[in-house]
């Protein structure tokens, strides 16, 4: 029993001593392991990216992000020079206080899709420009979520001046900009002219919509669009509903009912709505 206890005691002591020592070593210089990874991946060519690694460290990019990029890049047979190319825009993004994670993710996407490094670099450059526009629209106080949502909407084709119009609205809810920009991008994708889209979104915000979600707001437009109503008709009907202080859910219920079958022709929305009934489903229905 005694030799066993003695062995156990020594083992525990060794573990206790090794555990904090190992943790300390890892925590004290994670960049050392990043550089080590670069060295083992690229050998003498790793010198080409040492400068970028130092810049990334100074810019405050989390080392695990760079480590991830390095290992995926070397796994995809990108050269040290390629890695340096990808790191440039990420470092610039971090220096401008943009979330580096989004840029690293985009680089990883490009690597996964087998895109050549110059193409990934140009995509990252465009992303950086989009984030710059988003920051300009929102101002320096914008939080990360709002910045990312605005940038995503710009990437999805919403024009900066349209986004600016939405950002200038006095909204007390911090999530409104996120949902409004999502709604605008979705409406744009549905084929709504952006001038109409912004009109609709503005009416929505002023009536208290788009504070916590944009789905039902966009769903009404999307379903009405599928029924064959034009963007102008949909905007008019929704605006009219909002101005009368009636919930859009009424409109949604009505559209959901219409979408499934070719029922009797009835007015879309309220009786004084600018839209008139469109029987059945699909575009270009009757009644016009």
């Amino acid at each position, binding site marked *: 029993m005694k030799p066993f206890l003695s062995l156990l*005691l020594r083992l525990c002591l060794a573990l*206790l001593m090794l555990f904090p020592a190992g943790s300390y070593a890892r925590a004290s210089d994670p960049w050392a392991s990043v550089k080590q990874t670069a060295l083992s991946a690229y050998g003498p060519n790793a010198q080409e990216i040492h400068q970028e690694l130092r810049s990334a460290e100074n810019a405050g990019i989390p080392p695990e992000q760079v480590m991830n990029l390095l290992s995926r890049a070397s796994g995809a047979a990108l050269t040290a020079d390629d890695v340096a190319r990808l790191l440039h825009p990420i470092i610039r993004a971090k220096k401008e206080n943009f979330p580096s994670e989004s840029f690293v993710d985009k680089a*990883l*996407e490009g690597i996964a*899709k087998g*895109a050549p490094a110059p193409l990934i670099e140009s995509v990252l450059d465009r992303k950086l420009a989009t984030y710059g526009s988003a920051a300009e629209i929102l101002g320096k106080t914008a939080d990360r979520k709002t910045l990312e949502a605005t940038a995503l909407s710009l990437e999805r084709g919403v024009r900066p001046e349209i986004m600016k119009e939405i950002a200038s609205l006095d909204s007390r809810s911090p999530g409104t900009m996120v949902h409004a920009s999502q709604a605008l991008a979705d409406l744009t994708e549905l084929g709504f002219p952006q001038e109409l889209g912004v009109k609709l979104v503005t009416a929505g915000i002023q009536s208290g919509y788009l504070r916590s979600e*944009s*789905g039902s707001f966009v769903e009404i437009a999307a379903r009405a669009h599928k029924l064959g109503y034009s963007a102008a008709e949909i905007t008019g009907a929704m605006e009219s509903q909002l101005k009368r202080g009636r919930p859009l859910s009424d409109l949604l219920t009505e559209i959901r009912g219409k979408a499934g079958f070719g029922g009797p022709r009835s007015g879309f929305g309220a009786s004084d709505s600018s839209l008139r009934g469109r029987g059945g489903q699909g575009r270009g229905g009757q009644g016009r």
Partner: protein
Amino acid sequence: MSSEKTNRDPSGTISTLRSEETLDRGDGIVPAHGGRTPDHDVDEDPALASLGEMFRSLDDLEPPEEFTSHVMTRVREVQRSLPVRLWIALTRPRTIRVNLAQAFAGACIAMVLLLVAGPALQRVPFGGVPASKPAKEYLVQFTYRDPGAAAVYIAGTFNQWKPEEIPLADVSGNGVWTATVPLKPDVYEYMFYVDGHWKSDDRAAYYKDDGFGRKNAVLRLGNSHEALS
């Protein structure tokens, strides 16, 4: 101060002892035995003295030979049920002898376990709900239809575009590949990775140009998803 205590004497009458009479010797110091020895008490108390005399006069009797076996037989006859025996075993006070080396080894093991398992316990408290994650998480089922596909995966911003990390399964063999992925409320972009080629989800609600010549499907989870479902 004069506190009084009642005492029942052998004759059955109640006598009253005054504490300062019995304990205090007058110098303010109260001895541990109260200033009187048991012998002294017996000698001075006539009732106790007569009781002692009575015990001394009793004959010295030996128990009968079969006494012990009789007692043991009776004891054996008392068969306790299992729960009672278990309860007795659990509640019986026991003495555990531990030396310093054993105690130290135990403490070391406890510390190592705490260091190793501590972070994991912090992440997943009892009940299985991760503490760092919001309580809300969506189980999203991705579906891809291709009867001719041999291997289908899903990749996107939720897994840093690792192509072969989340496989889809064609359970019924009819070319409908599915995978259920737990995701937090957020906006995600994704594509399918089919037999080494990237494919867009042609049933997605929204898309975004990926910049590399393809279209990522856009998936929004949160309140908007609830409204759409």
